[in-house]
């Protein structure tokens, strides 16, 4: 399984590298040489500008926020939570100190808007898809993600253990996630699934029983069942789609910085840092039965 994971990661890295290579030709010869901090082309020279959405939801972000901060729920610059930890580890590998990292608020919809980006990269649980990679450049995987189903305890849907059994229920996903396509693809539901703009709206609908089940990524599912909706449970996770699904950081199309980040991620994977960050922040996100 470990070998498979490494192979997959290598494949993703290779894909990302070729994707960026088509955008720029100068850089391909010696990628490591151009990754010296001083030679990087950045939004703001000397600073690594990282984008994410606000509010930054747990468990991807943690540590809370300070009063008067523009960040709701969690301030990413505290370095706590999975994504800040990964971002700072990458930044450190590229030679940036903690104070040389600046976080900016980038709504998901703005992360792929045409025009000049205001971030060097955006880290916001964005799944890689081939279609998206035509518009932006993705880093290699920093998290291989599974989708899971959250339901209220004791409801009819909570006893369902198969994908086919879910067909007749009112399911929902969050906007911009690949979960919606997992519902359509894997379950082929008879009722039109709902799609919510925010985590808060989806959670409210689940509490209200306006939906029977909510499909989100596995760590978010465990966070919802553990902290947001007390009477809910993660009833199962979806079998991974062919080729797997992973989160990647988003770059301006063709930004050569992506290959530097890929290099940093490769090191972090090889020396076990990424696995350690994962076990620190996402340890609870395991153990849901796979829906067949």
């Amino acid at each position, binding site marked *: 399984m470990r070998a498979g994971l490494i192979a997959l990661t290598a494949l993703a890295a290779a894909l990302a590298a070729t994707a960026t290579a088509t955008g720029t030709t100068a850089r391909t010869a010696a990628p490591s040489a151009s990754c010296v901090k001083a030679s990087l082309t950045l939004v703001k020279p000397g600073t690594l500008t990282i984008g994410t959405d606000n509010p930054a939801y747990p468990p991807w972000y943690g540590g809370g926020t300070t009063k008067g901060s523009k960040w709701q729920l969690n301030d990413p610059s505290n370095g706590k939570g999975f994504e800040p930890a990964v971002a700072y580890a990458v930044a450190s590998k590229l030679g940036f100190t903690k104070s040389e990292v600046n976080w900016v608020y980038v709504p998901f919809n703005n992360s792929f808007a*045409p*025009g000049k980006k205001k971030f060097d990269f955006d880290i916001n649980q964005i799944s890689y898809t081939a279609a998206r990679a*035509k518009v932006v450049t993705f880093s290699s995987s920093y998290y291989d993600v599974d989708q899971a189903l959250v339901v209220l305890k004791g409801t009819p849907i909570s006893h369902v253990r198969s994908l086919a059994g879910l067909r007749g229920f009112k399911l929902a996903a969050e906007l911009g996630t690949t979960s919606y396509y997992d519902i359509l693809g894997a379950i082929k539901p008879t009722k039109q*699934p*709902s799609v919510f*703009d925010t985590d808060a709206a989806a959670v409210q609908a689940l509490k*209200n029983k306006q939906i029977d089940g909510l499909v989100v990524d596995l760590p978010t599912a465990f966070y919802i069942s553990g902290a947001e909706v007390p009477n809910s449970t993660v009833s199962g996770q979806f079998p991974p789609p062919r080729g797997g699904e992973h989160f990647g950081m988003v770059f301006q199309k063709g930004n050569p910085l992506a290959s530097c980040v890929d290099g940093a991620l490769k090191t972090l994977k090889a020396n076990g840092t990424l696995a350690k960050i994962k076990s620190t922040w996402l340890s609870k996100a395991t153990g849901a039965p796979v829906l067949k």
Partner: protein
Amino acid sequence: MAVEGDRRPGPEVAGRRSKLLAGWGPGGDGRRSVAIALLSTIVFFAIVVFAVTHSPGWPEVRKTFFDWGEFRSSLPEIASAFKLNVKIFCIAEVFILIFALLIAVIRSLPGPVFFPLRALAIAYADFFRGVPTILVIAILGFGAPALQLKHVPTSTTFWGIVALVLIYTAYVSEVYRAGIESVHPSQEAAARSLGLSRAQTLRHVILPQAVRRVIPPLLNDFIGLQKDTALVGILGAVEAFKQSEIDTDATFNYTPYVTAALLFVALTIPLARFTDWLIARDRRRRQSGGVA
């Protein structure tokens, strides 16, 4: 009293056109006007098209907003989701027209006895014209089902319709009221002197004239309602705009937004032309009739 039977065309009727063709007089002068209009239109659009297509970001904008392939692939899904918009505004409009008329009649009730009813009607219209539509939809759509009352539907479509009916009834009641107040008091006096009761006067003399006069503004509000059905999407319902967001987020290409916009426009433009035609016809009638 009413002018319904009196439809002799006046002398200037033949020359009257809708506003779009204003200034296109008949005769030889008309040909020159048409030529000037045509030329100025061509020059105007040529400048706009040139400015847009020669802007530095145009190639990217064309790819991300006007991608023919994306348009074709997103159209069937969005058109299918648009059926929900049509359903919502058709159902809502029926209730709006009825409830708004009731409110308007209540507001025009004379005498101190009806003061509480009048005050309520005024408070209602003031409140629901003042609150942003999206907030009413969000508060009702997520709030009402949270009460967990039995026999109260949790359907998002249901609460979306309720919210739109509440908002638009307030607007439309004002339109009706303007129509009622535009009927000259002598009409009521004449009707009463013929022995009609107050209710009969309202039903057979005031309202027929009032409603006919406000048909154009009623249609105007109907167009507004059609567009605002897109707001019901925040409750998770997959209507045309939500479907276009889903498609956009899947591909990071904004063309589906344009697809949805075209669908709305395809519906509202004929209605807007029809409204203009009604206004023109109404003006013709009044100018030829002379009374009322």
